[in-house]
């Protein structure tokens, strides 16, 4: 799961002027024709850098995102939910594996990426810095955060870098099952007891602001991204993605009889777009920069997992490891 919000702040385009103009023109023409760029193709340094940054952040979001939901696997109510949630979170970790591999084709190793996650150099989706207090919070994530991720990822799957697009196609297919699972869970809460309805309403109240932040800062304040749009690294603006999400899911939330904590939220019949209270971008920046409710905990858990697993990774690289016939 991933929102494209924090990828594109502050890029420097100066390096593009130093690229070989003939190679650059051929590269841009290829993208213009709708062809994919492959790992062995020539590419501008900025393109490589931005893609590594984006794919890496996406991969980190998958493994960090597994944490708030993962804590509910052991508490999921009943066999069906337990089995589904296990499969869902396993998918997310599998997405991380696919994405780290896609990013590795651009020249950064998985180990380097994980080091950068732990030392704070690279980010992950901001929404996972918020806590999942109740079962209903985990249902909100499975339905609506995954829905938001699909909006972003479907757009990015039409981008220009082959390995990322192919990974995203597989990821989106799996995410669509997550969405069904999440929606199913929410329908049961919505049509259940008063307590269950209340649990989900409280989850919406807690998660609405992070959900609006999920798509990244408003186009009015977000950084200059024209060249990344031209190179099909970024496929839509943050506001476009947010609007698409609202269009698809606000009616569904209302239909289930829940309220959304924004009295200004309504579809503007003249513009065809949604009006809403401007999200608090200062809070967004503060949380991205490490001061959210769960930033420290998420990274600490990840660091513990890495440290506890270090001997396994080192042992598997040892030259004395017995050769075991591959199983498939």
């Amino acid at each position: 799961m991933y929102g494209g919000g924090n990828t594109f702040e502050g890029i420097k385009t100066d390096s593009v002027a130093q690229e070989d103009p003939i190679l650059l023109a051929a590269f841009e023409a290829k993208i213009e024709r709708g062809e994919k760029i492959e790992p062995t193709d020539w590419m501008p340094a900025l393109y490589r850098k931005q893609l590594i940054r984006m794919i890496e952040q996406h991969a980190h979001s998958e493994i960090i995102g597994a944490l708030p939901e993962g804590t509910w696997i052991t508490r999921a109510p009943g066999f069906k939910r337990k089995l589904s949630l296990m499969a869902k979170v396993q998918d997310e970790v599998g997405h991380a594996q696919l994405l780290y591999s896609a990013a590795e084709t651009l020249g950064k190793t998985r180990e380097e990426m994980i080091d950068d996650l732990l030392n704070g150099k690279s980010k992950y989706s901001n929404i996972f810095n918020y806590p999942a207090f109740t079962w209903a919070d985990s249902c909100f994530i499975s339905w609506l955060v995954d829905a938001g991720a699909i909006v972003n990822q479907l757009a990015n799957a039409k981008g220009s870098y082959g390995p990322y697009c192919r990974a995203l196609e597989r990821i989106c297919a799996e995410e669509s099952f997550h969405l069904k699972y999440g929606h199913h869970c929410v329908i049961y809460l919505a049509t259940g007891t008063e307590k269950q309805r209340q649990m989900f309403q409280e989850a919406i109240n807690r998660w609405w602001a992070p959900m609006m932040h999920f798509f990244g800062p408003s186009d009015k304040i977000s950084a200059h991204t024209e060249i990344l749009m031209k190179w099909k690294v970024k496929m839509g603006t943050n506001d476009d993605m947010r609007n698409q999400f609202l269009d698809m899911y606000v009616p569904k939330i209302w239909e289930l009889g829940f309220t959304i904590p924004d009295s200004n939220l309504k579809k503007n019949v003249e513009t065809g777009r949604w009006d809403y209270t401007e999200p608090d971008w200062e809070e967004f920046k503060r949380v991205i920069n490490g001061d959210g409710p769960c930033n420290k905990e998420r990274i600490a858990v990840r660091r513990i997992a890495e440290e506890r697993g270090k001997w396994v990774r080192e042992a598997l690289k040892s030259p004395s490891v017995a050769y075991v016939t591959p199983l498939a």
Partner: protein
Amino acid sequence: MENIALKELLYKIADDQLILGHRNSEWTGMGPLLEEDIAFSSMAQDKVGQSYAIYQMLHQLGEQEPDTVAFMRNATQFHNCQLVELPNGEYDFSLIRHLLFDTAEYIRFDYLSTSSYQPLADLAGKIKGELQYHTLHANTLIKKLGTATEESINRLQHSLQVALPYALGIFEPSPYENILIEHKIFKGEVALQQAWQEKIEFIISKTQLTLTDWKVLQPVYGGRVGRHTEHLQPLLDEMSEVFKIDPTAEW
């Protein structure tokens, strides 16, 4: 009598699979490398799914609904061996437990695939196919890490020592052993343990690990009759935390 014996067998198998599946799922997001994270999550799904199928079979034999059986009993009502309820510990312990338990489970379901109780034989054939991948996974990792570095070998050796007495508890004698054998429902724990020991000896011989003499090991029994370590009840409390908010609600 035959029915009681069958239910006892099914309960202990289902409880084993559920509790170890739950433990395996605790590795989700915490694995030593992504590939192992995914492997343990995958085995968790298989095991919980297998327990669900056996609880359904028990339901057809007159027991309560699977969700009620799994989420509403307390520790003394569970028949799993103590091996599966122990905390995951470090990866070396989880891997050794995975080897010891799944090797036994594969043989158990192989035996059950020819059970005279046809619904069980049919189900066992399917489960055996899943467990084959679990044992392939355990064997592969044990062979690799059991020959790799001083640390990996020492860790596995230590965990093997800790886990073996508990592993023998898998085969805790059943009061219904003879009835199950007589009615050709199951070949029995004694035969299973013998086959298991041979298999474990073979796998360990491919590594730099050593096995304690079986004769000096003291099996840890009690799980099959509801005597558990202090670790099971907290696991069950966590598992049923949401379910018990309102057991009559649909989630």
